[in-house]
């Protein structure tokens, strides 16, 4: 089991997973999102190859209204 901090919330996963699997588990596949892992950008094209580790801090962002 691994624990990730996703947008500030601790989330448990039964097995290690890739960024793509995380995005899928959050029902965000195909959405326009950007992902940061421990402060570094993970390009969308690398979601499939990027394995996440226990303790990773993940930020997933979207564009919202702002001035």
């Amino acid at each position, binding site marked *: 089991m691994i624990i990730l901090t*996703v*947008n*500030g919330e601790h989330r448990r996963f039964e097995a290690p997973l890739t960024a793509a699997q995380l995005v899928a588990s959050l029902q*965000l596949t195909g959405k326009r999102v*950007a992902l940061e892992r421990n402060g570094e950008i993970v390009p969308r094209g690398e979601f499939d190859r990027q394995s996440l580790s226990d303790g990773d801090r993940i930020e997933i962002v*979207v564009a919202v*209204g*702002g001035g």
Partner: protein
Amino acid sequence: MNQLVVAGKAYSSRLLVGTGKYKDFAQTRAAVEASGAQIVTVAIRRTNIGQNPGEPSLLDALPPSRFTILPNTAGCYSAQDAVRTLRLARELLDGHTLVKLEVLGDPHTLYPNVMETLSAAQTLVKEGFQVMVYTSDDPIVAKELEQIGCVAVMPLASLIGSGMGILNPWNLQIIIDNAKVPVLVDAGVGTASDAAIAMELGCDGVLMNTAIATAKDPILMASAMRKAVEAGREAYLAGRMAKKPYVAAPSSPSSGLIAPAQNKAA
């Protein structure tokens, strides 16, 4: 040429608008359309995990194919957070590099922290971003930001969201006179006349959000702002008449008047 040129790209509209504080995306889109703006700012925020996976997104309402999306760093209080936010924005927007940098210094006034802003600007320019930068109306800081390589300098007219209008036209004038990059007033515009005054001073554009979004009728205010920016620009280009205090000069010929009436008194 009467176009706004930012980072080598020409825009026919000199009004840039934010997308915050609207009732819904339909209203956002309608207001943006009415404003004629081609550049629209967006904020970057954490996605709501597990909530309404099917909910529409802002960029569906304002597709990047149609509008130039200008991601901002609103809410960032350090250079580091601002830089991270814009790296995420660049990834989110498929490598798009035109960004709005703002680093705040105080949650009550939202006044910019110019030291952190300068530091973030240096990093972002090195990383290939085209930085439109929100700053105070300090002419020295504005010049520094230009020299760092920012593509536009955007001093406040008054505090963000205050609607207090242009409080220090003299500082803005100094910034405009010294700048070799576009100067846009960003923040503080309350109503159409404020936008017109900014443009009459010689600003290259105006960026606003609250003045439109919180008007009773945002769509109508968006239209008013479009006209105000256009009117102010035309007045600037036309060159206003000199102010002549204490001297009245008639607009009509002073000769050729009909004979004055005879005095009918006995």
